[in-house]
């Protein structure tokens, strides 16, 4: 009992009990009571993706929370992530756009320097236009306004997670259970040492069971932690698939090596985006119907490249026709490009190669959990919300969640409170819920607005887009909101 209370009340009495002392108490406890869970942790994070790894790194770095006992549970083998290394001519096809706010946070927790910086591409300009009318909006910071002209950083997800893992290994102090699937989560039992009836206990496939003062679900859209907490996640499927690929372009961009440009065109079937990577490479994210997505995956590389180039050049009528062909899009593009006038510098340079095996697709959906917290449970990242990739915000929202949750935990610990109590987690929920909800809603409405192919809405939305493009302060406002450096609205 003394051992248990010493562990539970550690934050209040002695914030920096050395590891060996606390472990020696535990070993004694384990020998005496075999029905207790193997280990009791302050924070157990289920999910080793960007959100989970950031959370644990931030907790370890923060001087207030650095003494907490934390564990990471991940179903996949993390050694593969740790040993991520690809040659400079190959890039993973799952990439994300990190906003300056997220990059700043990663730098604060010391993970940024562990990313392979040569594989991270910052871009300074973004061209977005309507595929039906050609109305265009150009995002770039006006010269001389902001200190850095970077809009965002394009990073491979694996690069990000491997950098975070390296930092976590450097910091130490985390019990990592990788290759362990969660068999079940239930409440603990009462025993002489501790009353764990309100504590979630995670049972792993390796036989261990971990009791958590705070169980954090960073385990993706089908979160078992969220299911355990009984939190509903509501939303809808978009009936769209996001097709991704790594492409080689004919040059390193119209702005040259040091001024990269991201492109997005709104087609009636969904937006197609070409995001720059180091060198002549770029990553494609094309949200389109499931039928079109399966065709794109089956095409020969030559025809696939023709479809990609056509997506940025040809009219929706031509694209719809080319989606009905099994082959020969190459020829069709060559003909139609002669009769479709387009200024080549306003669209991405032509794609000349596709990385073998990089064409893949994933279904798009929108989900938002009813709440992010419950007794001794918190949700971050995709477990809490899933958003359309139209604005590249999903991963950044997760990083924002992590920052807010760390602040809430820090507050509770520094005030000597039980960090798993819902009262102290409420701050996280109220800080993040409304902001995330608005962003998810905006992305959803943008998707719906640009799905309309004809009718009065088309010229109206073009007028709106051109108006925003012309109104400098309004455009700057949107850019600041998207990059996370703007005024906090919610």
């Amino acid at each position, binding site marked *: 009992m003394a051992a248990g209370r010493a562990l539970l009340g550690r934050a209040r009495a002695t914030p920096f009990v050395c590891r060996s002392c606390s472990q020696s108490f535990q070993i004694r406890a384990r020998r005496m009571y075999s029905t207790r869970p193997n280990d009791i942790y302050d924070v157990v994070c289920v999910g080793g993706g960007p959100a989970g790894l950031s959370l644990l790194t931030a907790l370890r770095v923060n001087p207030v929370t650095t003494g907490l006992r934390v564990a990471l549970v991940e179903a996949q083998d993390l050694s593969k992530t740790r040993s991520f290394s690809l040659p400079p001519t190959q890039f993973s096809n799952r990439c994300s756009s990190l906003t300056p706010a997220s990059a700043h946070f990663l730098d604060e927790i010391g993970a940024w320097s562990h990313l392979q910086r040569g594989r991270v591409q910052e871009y300074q300009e973004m061209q977005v236009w309507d595929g039906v009318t050609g109305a265009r909006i150009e995002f770039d910071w006006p010269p001389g306004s902001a200190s850095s002209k970077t809009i965002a950083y394009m990073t491979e997800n694996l690069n990000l997670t491997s950098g975070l893992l390296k930092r976590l290994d450097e910091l130490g102090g985390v019990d990592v259970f990788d290759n362990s699937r969660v068999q079940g989560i239930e409440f603990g039992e009462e025993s002489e040492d501790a009353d764990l009836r309100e504590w979630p206990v995670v049972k792993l496939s390796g036989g261990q069971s971990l009791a958590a003062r705070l169980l954090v679900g960073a385990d993706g859209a089908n979160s078992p932690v969220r299911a355990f907490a009984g939190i509903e996640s509501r939303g809808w499927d978009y009936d769209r698939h996001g097709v991704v690929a790594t492409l080689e372009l004919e040059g390193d961009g119209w702005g040259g090596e040091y001024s990269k440009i991201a492109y997005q065109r709104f087609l009636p079937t969904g937006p197609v985006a070409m995001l720059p990577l180091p060198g002549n490479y770029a990553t494609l994210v094309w949200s389109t119907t499931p039928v079109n997505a399966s065709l794109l995956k089956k095409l020969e590389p030559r025809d696939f490249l023709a479809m990609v180039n056509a997506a940025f050049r040809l009219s929706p009528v031509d694209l719809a*026709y080319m989606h009905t062909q099994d082959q020969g899009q190459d020829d069709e593009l060559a003909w139609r490009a002669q009769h479709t006038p387009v200024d080549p510098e306003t669209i991405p340079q032509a794609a000349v190669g596709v990385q073998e095996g990089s064409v893949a697709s994933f279904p798009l959906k929108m989900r938002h959990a009813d709440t992010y917290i419950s007794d001794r449970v918190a949700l971050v990242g995709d477990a809490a919300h899933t958003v359309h990739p139209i604005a590249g915000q999903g991963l950044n929202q997760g990083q924002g969640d992590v920052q807010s949750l760390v602040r809430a935990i820090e507050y509770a610990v520094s005030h000597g409170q039980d960090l798993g109590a819902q009262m102290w987690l409420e701050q996280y929920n109220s800080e993040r819920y409304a902001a995330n909800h608005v962003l998810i809603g905006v992305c959803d409405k943008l998707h719906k607005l640009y799905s309309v192919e004809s009718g009065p809405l088309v010229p109206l939305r073009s007028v709106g887009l051109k108006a925003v493009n012309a109104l400098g302060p309004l455009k700057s406002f949107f850019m600041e909101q998207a990059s996370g450096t703007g005024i906090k609205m919610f």
Partner: protein
Amino acid sequence: MEVASSRIRPATRTASKVCAACTSSSTSSSRPFSALNRPPPSYPGHVPLTRVERAGLAVGSGVMSLLNPYRHDLIAALGEATATPYFIYRLRDAMLSDPTGRRILRLRPRISSNTLSVEKLRQLPANTVGRAYVDWLDREGVSPDTRSQVRYIDDEECAYVMQRYRECHDFYHAVTGLPIVREGEVALKAFEFANTLIPMTGLSMLAVATLKPSERSRFWSTYFPWAVRNGVRSREVINVFWEEELERDVGELRAELGIERPPDLREIRQREREERKRQKEMQNQGR
């Protein structure tokens, strides 16, 4: 850790084709210009017009062609002046949505006495499209060369679409069987408007005011409903590759397109003429 080798598949032929096409394509877009500073023509015979000039052409040619419907050059000019901004692009997109239409746009066939041998058409069996066409040409005393060139449409591909429509107009006469008299033309124009949405065809329906009362009543009661019903539900006639359909049976092609045969206007008019002649004879005899 061993990484699977991966090749970037170059497709330089595509790139160079796309690049060349993009940089060489004309940027003759809709930038406003003055009459003193016209952009260069997009195709031989192209005359870029300012908006005021286009409006003036539309009004002038509309009024004069109503007063003198034999001025087919004014009717053509009216068609070109009113086709932009939306209608000719819609028609071109309708062609691009159809495989045959795309083939037509690719091959750019022209109908003239060079490409269509009238002698060979005269030898076709009586029920074929080609024979109906050449019989009609002979009866009306026109040749396939009487169509004027498109001049006032800025986009080169849309200019071809307009030219194709103009050259196929005679085939529409052949397929529907409507004669070239004012009444038949108005009925056919109503059908074309319902099918192709070219504004000139709709405006031509104003010529109803110039018809005789009996003709007008016949138009509203019979031919106008026929035109609307068939124009809307049939296939786009602009997508028919006429050069390949010359030896087909007319009735079969009509059925495939979804056009029902209108009452034979020539026969009706013939009967009316005979009726009038008989009545006049009776009056003369009675006197």
